[in-house]
């Protein structure tokens, strides 16, 4: 791939330059190109400093766009890392927030009587495909007024379900839509009409009235295979398939953040390094192209600070304004792409940033520019009037 790209660049860019006639190269003629026409537009009645900065910017419009393009790509890379971090952090938070019970007992052999202090429920596992991956969806039959799912109010119909927001997001369904799920064991498909979407992001849950669910799956009245409670119950472990405590959930959800943090840090640092390199190279090119003019200004008596105001401060405006556009654009684009990265994860996707994070990203972009500015000022300092003195017979 790289040799192909290099060959394409050679063919398109270098060949064009070499096709100029020898005479035009000798005369160093400049064609009245579109770029030079843009740099000569009438700027009205601006004062000297903004006028000069604007002319410089218009002259180096391509480099400015390259800086913005580089910034956008680096921000996209950064958003991969930050979306990952936010995803894991939100998953962790939502898991703890949404786990309203202390213990969940899943029965292998349910007893006739529900243990005292426990709230019964009926759970079945169904499947659906998302982005090519088969995901398990837990269908939970609960009694009206179940204290552990207070927002859920399923109807009594066996064809209607209330879905979690995670399911709505994963499978792209909403209120009024039909959700089809597969029972792999019995090789049966079920089509449910969604009556409501509740905010539940940490797992793929759909809810139905327990009686309706018993009827749907041909179970007896009062059948249950899951018990929720807010304290430990005395249940024979031989009857249980699994016991999950709130503490287990908290520990398990925190693992995601710990596992992904090194990758988040690495990718974030990488994006910053790439941005610094792109910014330095592009602005250095702009300055090198203007080295003769800078040398001339120093002959006239301009100090380095004034030259910096003329040649570098305009770029600060480009970067500052560009970041205001590129940050939300990169975030928006990554939010569209990111679900594909985690399509095999059976959980909801919350990628929203707190407002402070946007401010930190913006401040980071400006800090990167100021760092490069500091380095380039030293370059400006090293430019002497000697460049102009060479241009004589």
């Amino acid at each position, binding site marked *: 791939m790289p040799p192909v790209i290099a060959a394409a660049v050679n063919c398109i860019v270098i060949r064009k330059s070499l096709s100029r006639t020898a005479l035009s190269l000798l005369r160093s003629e400049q064609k009245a190109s579109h770029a030079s026409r843009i740099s*000569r537009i009438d700027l009205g009645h601006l004062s*000297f*400093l903004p006028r*000069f900065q604007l002319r410089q910017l218009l*002259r180096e419009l391509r480099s400015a766009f390259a800086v913005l393009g580089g910034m956008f790509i680096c921000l996209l890379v950064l958003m991969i890392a930050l979306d990952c971090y936010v995803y894991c952090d939100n998953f962790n938070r939502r898991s703890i927030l949404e786990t309203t019970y202390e213990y969940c007992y899943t029965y292998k052999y349910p007893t006739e009587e529900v243990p005292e202090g426990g709230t019964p429920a009926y759970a079945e596992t169904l499947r659906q495909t998302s982005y090519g991956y088969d995901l398990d969806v837990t269908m939970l039959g609960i009694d009206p007024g179940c204290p552990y799912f207070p927002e859920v109010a399923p109807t009594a119909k066996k064809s209607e379900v209330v879905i979690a927001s995670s399911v709505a997001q994963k499978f792209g369904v909403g209120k009024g839509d039909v959700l089809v799920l597969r029972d792999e064991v019995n090789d049966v498909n079920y089509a449910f009409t969604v009556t409501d979407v509740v905010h539940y992001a940490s797992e793929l849950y759909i809810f139905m009235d327990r009686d309706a669910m018993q009827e749907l799956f041909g179970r007896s009245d009062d059948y249950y295979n899951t018990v929720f409670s807010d304290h430990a119950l005395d249940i024979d472990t031989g009857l249980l398939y699994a016991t999950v405590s709130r503490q287990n959930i908290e520990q398990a959800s925190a693992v995601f953040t710990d596992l992904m943090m090194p990758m988040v840090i690495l990718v974030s640092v990488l994006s910053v390094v790439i941005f610094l390199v792109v910014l330095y190279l592009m602005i250095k090119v702009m300055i090198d192209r203007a080295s003769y*003019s800078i040398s001339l200004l120093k002959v006239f*008596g301009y100090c380095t600070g004034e030259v910096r105001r003329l040649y570098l401060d305009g770029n600060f405006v480009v970067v500052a304004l560009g970041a205001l556009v590129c940050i939300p654009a990169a975030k928006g684009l990554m939010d569209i792409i990111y679900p594909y990265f985690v399509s095999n994860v059976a959980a909801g996707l919350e990628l929203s940033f707190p407002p402070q994070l946007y401010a930190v990203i913006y401040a980071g972009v400006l800090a990167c520019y100021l760092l490069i500015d500091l380095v380039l000022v030293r370059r400006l300092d090293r430019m002497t009037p000697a460049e102009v003195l060479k241009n*004589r017979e």
Partner: protein
Amino acid sequence: MYLEVNDLCKSYGEGGSYTQVLKNVSLEVHQGDMCVIQGTSGSGKSTLLNCIGGLDTVDSGSIVVDGKEIVGLNAKQLSDYRREELGFVFQFYDLVPDLTVQENIQVCQYLTRSPLDLGELLQVLGLTEHKNKFPAQLSGGQQQRCAIARALIKNPRLLLCDEPTGALDSKTSREILTLLERVNAQYGTTMLIVTHNNAIKNMVHQVVLLKDGQIHKNYRNEVRTPAACITPCRSWASGCRACCWCMHW
């Protein structure tokens, strides 16, 4: 005395490539005078101009401009000296190609708190109708006028011209020299002009001839020949020291 150069020495290179470009050069220029420095290629004209302009260091000697010693100043001080005292006119104009005529002049106007009036300067130099044009749209003579305007806008005490007519044809050269003459008369600017052009030495107050890095001749013109036949205009009627064909000082 506005400019005094005493025993100035300047060399380049080391060992086999050592070259002494200026050897004990001394000269004095009065305030308000036009002084031409002539010599063959390699005689040290441009080096002398660069040293006086604070663009190059010297090995020994002194340069005193308006009572201030230039030799030994650091880079910042030399920059301030060029900013406050000097104007530069180069052979190839050295205008910023992406700035209009007016903007090119404003490059130097920005440096001073008390610049000359831009409109008046444009008028004196015949650039009013060209002020919004870019250098590529101007002839060589117009570009050099713009360069002169840029040098003069901050009302410098000393104007350093390095081959100001070197890239121009004879007719345009005469126009530029006439212009410099007018500027000298109107603003009292002291001028040092480095040139190969032999005809210029008759129009200036002082002639310095350099040969192999040393002053070969240094004299004042008793009678000056004007650069061209100038028709006096109203703006020149009062306080003008020049008349049409000859100048007696």
